[in-house]
Structure formats: structure tokens, C-alpha cells
């Protein structure tokens, strides 16, 4: 699905990370593997430390902390928010929407749209797409996009193939109208036949959590997890990403009349260094244009990895400079999406801790 927008911009990005740093070695003893094998995994996948929320801290807590920071520092005014988007797979409740809870927490105006979007790995691109669509309306001038996931409670600590790569985080991106009429090219694709490649089997209405779903079983690779835990078919996801993402990027570049070299930064979702380097090879991009350092520093927080990648690698530089960026996310759904747009001259681009 090809979409195109004009007169929209990202005005600021704030990434909020948990204070707690957990090193790969600290958790190695939980895995049913010799140390030598685990260290080899660490090296090849690029694992090192990840950020884990404190017990009881939810996705929305990081969003509230970030919004309060923006209000307190005069970086965002409460009454200018026309829409509040919460993109997450770790909401506070099944009902009500977490975006409404956050609106209520701050007592924001009633004349606004709150919307929860259930998306993960491509959550930043899907969130931006929704923000751009809302901004087509005359009455909407500023959208606050919140990407947040605290999935660590759902990942088995005895699962070597999943636990070390995940991290918790949130990001707040301000999206607004602009007179600058540069085109924004968006591509989105979905394949629900692969929906179970990444899932948390129990805990919803289809399979409520019970004593049985909490029992850990060993899988064919020697990992232990229960039906309450997040599971990802690594081989299916790897094959899907290598098959679908490079042609999507090539097609998007053609639509934008750009070559791969014209893009200053490829800010991609961060599953692990191995997969990102393979993607860079397939697209024909130098590794230094596609940062792959988020998993090793903070872990993969699904839709939050792209804004984290922008905040961590460009920081204040993006407050002075502007770059042609290619953003991309791919995973749960299966959903894969990419955006080519200019990003720069932001009012803020930083990381805070909570």
C-alpha cells in the first residue's frame, strides 16, 4: 500500500528509558546452555546490556513521565495537543484505551482524539502514518505519538533466544503541520498468514492465563518458556524480513526518485545486529548509514527502537541539521512499513531515564 503526504513534519523526539541496566552475563546462568555457546550468541547477535522496567512499571508510566517532562520544560503545551496516539502491545488494560487514561491523567481538553494502536515492530511507521492522516484535517495541527512497550514481564528469563534481545522503552514524537511541501513517501504491507510467527499465546480472550498456561516447556532449541510468554519463530521472521524488506525499500526509493546513496540515514527497527547487517547488505547500504547499536545498548523495545535509534545516534545534532531519512519497521503482524522523509531542525531530540 503506497501512501504520500505533504506539509507534515516531525517536530521533536523524546526517548524515555528505564534506569535499570541488565548485562547479558548477569542472565547467562538462567539459560540451559554452556557459557561458551551463550557468549558466542552474544557476539554474533550483538547483545550486551538491555534496559528493563522496574517491577510494576507499565508502558503508560514512561509516557506520562515523558509528557510531564515536556510540559515542565515548556517543550509542549497541553492545550495544543489535538490527538494522542498510543502505539503499544502492552496496554494497562483491555479496556479502557491507555491513550484515554493518559489524557485523563493530565486533564487534557475534550476536543481531541485519543487512539490506541496495536502494533509492534513497525509501530513507529504505523504511528507516523496515522498521525499524518489525522493532520490532513483542518482542525488537527499537532499530534502526539507515543510508542511504548514494556514486554519484559512477558519474556521467559529461561529463553536464551528471546530474553537477551528485548528491552523496555517509550518514545514521544511530536508530529505537526508545516509549510514545507517536501513529499513524504510511505509504504505499508501486511501478511496475516504469518500472524503467529510473533505472539503471546495466552492472556487474551482466546486463551486466558491459567495454571496450565504458566507451565514452562522446553522447545526444540533447548529454551524454556510457557504459553504466557512471548514467542518468536526466529527462522520465519528472518526469512520474511530478508525476502520482503529489501524490495520494499527499493520500490520506495524509486517512487521518491532517489538512489540508495541519496539517503543520509537508514533508521531501521532493531531486532539484532546480525539481521540488520544482512539487510544492509541486501539493500546495498554501508553499515555506518544504518546504525545497529540499539539492541547492544538498550535492547529491542519493538516500535520504540526507531525513535531510540534517532535520539541515540543523532541527539542534539538533529536540532541543527536536517537529513534525508529512510525509516523502516518489520515484524509482528506480520507488518512491514517504510517511510522516506526529511527529518531535522527538531525542537528537541534527546533521551531521558525514568
Amino acid at each position, binding site marked *: 500500500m503506497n501512501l504520500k503526504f505533504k506539509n507534515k513534519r516531525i517536530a521533536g523526539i523524546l526517548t524515555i528509558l528505564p534506569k535499570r541496566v541488565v548485562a547479558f552475563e548477569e542472565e547467562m546462568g538462567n539459560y540451559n*546452555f554452556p557459557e*561458551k555457546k551463550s557468549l558466542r550468541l552474544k557476539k*554474533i547477535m550483538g547483545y550486551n546490556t538491555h534496559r528493563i522496567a522496574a517491577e510494576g512499571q507499565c508502558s503508560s508510566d514512561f509516557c506520562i513521565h515523558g509528557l510531564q517532562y515536556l510540559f515542565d520544560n515548556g517543550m509542549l503545551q497541553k492545550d495544543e495537543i489535538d490527538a494522542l496516539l498510543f502505539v503499544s502491545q502492552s496496554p494497562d488494560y483491555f479496556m479502557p484505551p491507555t491513550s484515554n487514561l493518559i489524557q485523563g491523567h493530565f486533564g487534557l481538553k475534550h476536543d481531541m482524539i485519543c487512539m490506541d494502536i496495536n502494533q509492534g515492530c513497525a509501530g513507529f511507521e504505523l504511528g507516523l502514518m496515522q498521525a499524518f492522516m489525522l493532520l490532513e484535517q483542518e482542525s488537527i495541527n499537532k499530534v502526539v505519538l507515543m510508542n511504548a512497550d514494556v514486554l519484559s514481564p512477558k519474556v521467559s528469563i529461561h529463553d536464551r*533466544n528471546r530474553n537477551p534481545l528485548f528491552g523496555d522503552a517509550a518514545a514521544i514524537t511530536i508530529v505537526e503541520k508545516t509549510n514545507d511541501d517536501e513529499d513524504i513517501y510511505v509504504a505499508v504491507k501486511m501478511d496475516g498468514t504469518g500472524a503467529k510467527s510473533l505472539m503471546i499465546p495466552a492472556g487474551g480472550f482466546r486463551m486466558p492465563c491459567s495454571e496450565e498456561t504458566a507451565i514452562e516447556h522446553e522447545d*526444540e*532449541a533447548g529454551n524454556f518458556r510457557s504459553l504466557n510468554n512471548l514467542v518468536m519463530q526466529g*527462522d520465519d521472521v*528472518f*526469512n520474511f524480513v530478508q525476502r520482503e524488506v529489501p524490495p520494499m525499500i527499493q520500490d520506495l526509493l524509486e517512487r521518491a526518485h532517489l538512489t540508495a546513496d541519496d539517503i543520509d540515514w537508514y533508521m531501521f527497527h532493531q531486532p539484532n545486529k546480525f539481521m540488520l547487517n544482512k539487510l544492509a547488505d541486501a539493500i546495498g547500504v554501508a553499515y555506518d548509514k544504518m546504525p545497529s547499536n540499539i539492541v547492544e545498548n538498550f535492547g529491542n523495545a519493538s516500535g520504540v527502537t526507531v525513535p531510540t535509534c534517532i535520539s541515540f545516534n543523532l541527539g542534539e545534532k538533529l536540532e541543527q541539521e536536517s537529513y534525508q531519512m529512510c525509516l523502516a519497521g518489520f515484524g509482528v503482524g506480520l507488518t512491514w512499513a517504510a517511510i522516506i522523509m526529511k527529518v531535522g531542525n527538531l525542537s528537541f531530540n534527546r533521551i531521558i531515564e525514568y
Partner: protein
Amino acid sequence: MEELKSKLAEILEEESVEDNDVLEEFDYWDSLTILGIISMVSEKYKKTFKAADIRACATIGDLCKLILG
């Protein structure tokens, strides 16, 4: 065939591998190695395999047959 075997040896971190070598007996036979093989085969041989396809092989010979077959 020899080129494939040298690639497999590289992924398994072995000097060399032989047809009769049993996969389960390699020090580094694990899910990471299997992903490495899937990735290498997709790059060099333009073929897609699932982890279960690779796991169904018992020896290096079986694996070569699967990949080149």
C-alpha cells in the same frame, strides 16, 4: 560441494567437515548455527529453509543433499 562444506565448517567453527560427521556432535550445533546456515544458504544459493528442515538432517552429508538438492 567442497565450497559448501567449507562454508559449513566456517559457521560451525571447525577446521573442516566430512559427510559422515553427525550434526548433533558438533560443539556449536545450536539454533544460532542453524540461523547462520539459513542466512548463508539464502545469500549464496538463493534458497529458503526453515529451522525444522535443517534440524531434520542428521549428518553433514544430509545437509549438503538438502541444500544442493
